[in-house]
């Protein structure tokens, strides 16, 4: 028997796992070694969060699966993350803008889930709030430095905002996944988080002498239903190939 909020837990776990994978790509590629550590550490927090959530998911969806089953043995259409987190790594400015958005969303979303009727989910969420607040601070400090920095860094930040724009609306869409969880008394509707998340982001951008996230004619959709962009398949191929080439291998 699957609980009504199992898809929500899957969505939260997949958002965390896929972004952790993208952040891990920065190790050895960031502008300075402290930043390799920082983005790597943030990814590690997200990976840990995903692992805790997959641990809960195995009993919620009634399949008894473990974290490795979810991470390595599902195909693209079974992943429920939003499109923003799967987009390919671009320049550092893009990553800071993406991190600012994702961590701001996580702060608000996890704060709401910290009072969830599912106490184990609430426990994972309330730990995540303090961690995400730290991640958000990191993104904020970089956004200020880059936005209000040199002409080149400012230009890159403007370009980064244009690049993330098509993926922002999806973050606040109330899909069947969230609605079912809210009906079961466990979740939160993303649309109710919009003002808080974008309010924080816009304040940071204004302080960084940047205009807000521009509107976009293109908008991503479908991540929560398992419909992904081209980038997802390549990401999964890299993440999953070792486990699939050597099934059952452990260390």
């Amino acid at each position, binding site marked *: 028997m699957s609980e009504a909020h199992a898809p929500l837990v899957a969505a939260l776990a997949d958002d965390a796992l896929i972004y952790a994978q993208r952040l891990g790509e920065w190790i050895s590629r960031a502008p300075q070694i*402290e930043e390799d*550590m*920082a983005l*790597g*550490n*943030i*990814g*590690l*927090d*997200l*990976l*840990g*969060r995903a*692992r*805790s959530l997959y*641990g809960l998911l195995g009993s919620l969806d009634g399949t008894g699966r473990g974290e490795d089953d979810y991470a390595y043995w599902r195909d693209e259409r079974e992943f429920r993350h939003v499109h923003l987190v799967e987009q390919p790594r671009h320049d550092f400015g893009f990553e800071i803008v993406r991190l600012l958005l994702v961590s701001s969303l996580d702060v608000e979303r996890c*704060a709401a889930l*910290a*009072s969830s009727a599912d*106490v*184990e989910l*609430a*426990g*994972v969420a*309330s*730990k*995540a*709030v*303090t*961690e995400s*607040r*730290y991640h*958000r*601070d*990191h993104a*904020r*400090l970089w956004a*200020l430095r880059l936005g209000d920095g040199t002409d080149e860094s400012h230009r890159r930040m403007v370009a980064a905002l244009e690049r993330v724009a098509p993926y922002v609306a999806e973050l606040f869409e109330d899909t069947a996944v969230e609605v079912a969880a809210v009906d079961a008394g466990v979740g939160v509707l993303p649309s109710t988080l919009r003002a808080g998340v974008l309010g*924080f982001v816009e304040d940071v951008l204004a*302080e960084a002498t940047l205009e807000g996230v521009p509107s976009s004619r293109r908008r991503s959709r479908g991540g929560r239903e398992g419909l992904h962009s081209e980038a997802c398949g390549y990401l999964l191929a890299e993440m999953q190939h070792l486990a699939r080439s050597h099934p059952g291998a452990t260390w």
Partner: protein
Amino acid sequence: MVMTRVAVDEVRERVGAVTDPEIPTLSIADLGIVRGVEADEAAGAVRVRITPTYSGCPAMEVIARDIVDAAAAAGWDASVEIVHSPPWTTDWLTERGRAALAELDIAPPGPRATGASGPVPVTIGRAPHTASVEPVACPRCGSADTELLARFGTTACKALHRCRACGDPFDEFKAV
């Protein structure tokens, strides 16, 4: 060889005495992550519940293994369960735990900035929202004249600082 099984209180103590693999002077009891040790004397089994410090802390697996080994050496079969609620915060560190950190020249965590559901702290200027309110004292020379070098340090739970007085870099156990 027949293993002698120690008393319940003794196995509880030995489980709590397992140390953090990254911070070998710090026991998991003093770290505050042991949430329960329930013994079934008839079966010689003990169930240990622990909670993660940071979500991504890779030491949890090593700690779980060390608990099983410590119990086995005491003649007990241990199973380890990871619980998430209520979440661990640095407030769970005992005074002895804080002293153990200082012994390794790691600055113990300061007071936490906010609770999980508290308001977003407001700061003037561009200081980080989550930074400690008070300066972090150098664990070597005690000077408060220190600067933050990197907010993400050698492990998930630490930030890197430098003491302007004695010139040494040091880790701070971040308050969460």
